[in-house]
């Protein structure tokens, strides 16, 4: 009895690519049901059961065909094709700008867009800030709830975080549990405010009763200092490291303005005027 191997796959790009490979198509054409199914195109998703086998007597093969969408005999040619397709997929992935797991932008996009924003800052003089966010206790989730739960956490919290940011901000997954935030036309004062709100939001999430916190490192781009793209990225990374060292759930930042003054806006004249109105108010009787 020959060894049979069951392969299930989704009707996705990879399968369609097989469609285009002529030699594989030849194999598939014998399976009329499958070729029809493929010709229908990419609309909708479906289950595809392929059985890869070694050489089979035709009676056995017929039997198998009744239970599967396709029965494909393994040969050197097929293996080579699969390797080729895999290589192509990998190349496509490296060209991609979105993160596979979360669907957010990826590091490639982040660096690309950071370059754009830095150029814009140089030209227009509008400030721009970036931040790197890292969860303090993601490992705990991974260890105690399992990796799939960890992935689910990253995906859901990633999307929630994106919703909390302004439409002009970019949230990217840099890898692991590290996220990058790009804030165009935003000074350090506002950027810190945004980071602080995001941090608070994360603290308020109780993921399966785990309290999660995040550390954030931030850097403001100052065109006067002629900092290069990777240098700015590293500055934010150093600040992230500092935030972690400071005891986690912290925000650390570097920018043009003094750290303290950066975060503190003085009491405005409007606030002051209203505050002093207390003397004009008539006591209620």
């Amino acid at each position, binding site marked *: 009895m020959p060894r049979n191997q069951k392969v299930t796959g989704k009707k996705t790009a990879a399968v369609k690519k097989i469609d285009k490979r002529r030699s594989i198509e030849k194999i598939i054409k014998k399976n009329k049901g499958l070729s029809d199914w493929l010709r229908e195109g990419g609309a909708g998703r479906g289950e595809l059961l392929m059985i890869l086998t070694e050489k089979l007597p035709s009676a056995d093969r017929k039997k198998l065909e009744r239970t599967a969408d396709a029965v494909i005999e393994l040969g050197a040619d097929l293996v080579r094709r699969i390797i080729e397709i895999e290589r192509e997929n990998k190349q496509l992935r490296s060209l991609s700008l979105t993160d596979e797991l979360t669907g957010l932008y990826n590091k490639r996009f982040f660096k690309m867009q950071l370059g754009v924003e830095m150029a814009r800052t140089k030209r227009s003089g509008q400030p721009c800030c970036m931040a790197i966010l890292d969860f303090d206790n993601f490992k705990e989730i991974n260890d105690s709830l399992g990796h799939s739960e960890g992935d689910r956490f990253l995906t859901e919290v990633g999307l929630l975080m994106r919703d909390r940011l302004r439409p002009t901000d970019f949230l990217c997954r840099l890898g692991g549990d590290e996220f990058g935030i790009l804030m165009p036309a935003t000074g350090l004062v506002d950027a810190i405010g945004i980071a*602080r709100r995001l941090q*608070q939001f994360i603290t308020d999430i109780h993921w399966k009763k*785990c*309290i999660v916190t995040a550390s954030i490192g931030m850097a403001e781009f100052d065109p006067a200092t002629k900092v290069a793209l990777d240098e700015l990225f590293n500055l934010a990374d150093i600040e992230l490291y500092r935030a972690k060292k400071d005891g986690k759930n912290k925000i650390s930042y570097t920018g043009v303005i003094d750290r*303290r003054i950066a*975060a*503190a*806006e*003085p*009491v*405005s004249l*409007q*606030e*002051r005027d*209203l*505050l*002093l*109105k*207390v*003397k004009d*108010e008539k*006591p*209620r*009787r």
Partner: protein
Amino acid sequence: MKTRKKRNPIIVCVTSGKGGVGKTFLTVNLAAALAKKGKKILVVDCDFGLANVDIMLGIRPVRTMKDVVFGEATLQDVIVRTTGGFDLVPACSGVRDMAQLLYERIEMIKEMLLSLEGYDLILLDTGAGMTEVVLQFNLLANRNILVINRELTCLMDAYAMIKVLYQLFGRDSFDIIVNSSMDEKEGDRIFRHFDSICRRFLGFPLTHLGSLRHDEDVPRSIMNQEILVKASPHSKIAESCASMAGALSRRRA
């Protein structure tokens, strides 16, 4: 992930921004009122350099927080029992470099305070102004009480204090005590006004812990180095202190 085995004391910081608003008077009387309710209370005089609590209580401290900061004594060593039924960590007066030194050791002091056993509440009486030390003590505390009165300068300083604590450290929960108002209604009115501005510009509401009406008994008790809550327990002021103490101890955790 939190264990409830050992209950740490709740640290409450009393601050005002402007001086002379009645922080120390309130701290001492709140502590006495809480002690009366059977709570174990520690008051820490955090005005290093210009200490007051000991004078208000008529205590002559031999050892103070200075000895703790310089490593010459433990916190346990300097704690004194007061006539108000609560304990006190006195501060020292006239040491200029205390502030800087204290700032460097704030973490150490925090750990020492948290490791103290047997206290329900620790009240920190901070000095006036917005110095680094004052900010650090406010940050260290679990709860922040701000004492305000009807003076415009006081309202301004208290608001500035709240704004800085919010902007720098994300603090957005403050208990307000309105001191020396003409009556209850004026206290409410000042609070509502102050609260509306916080809501509008900072985006969070304040809590009204209570109001103390203006009373000639207050300066008299300070002059006599007595605790008003204890000396005249049936006065209006004592009643207000008791109700604030009740509100403070009810909302623990």
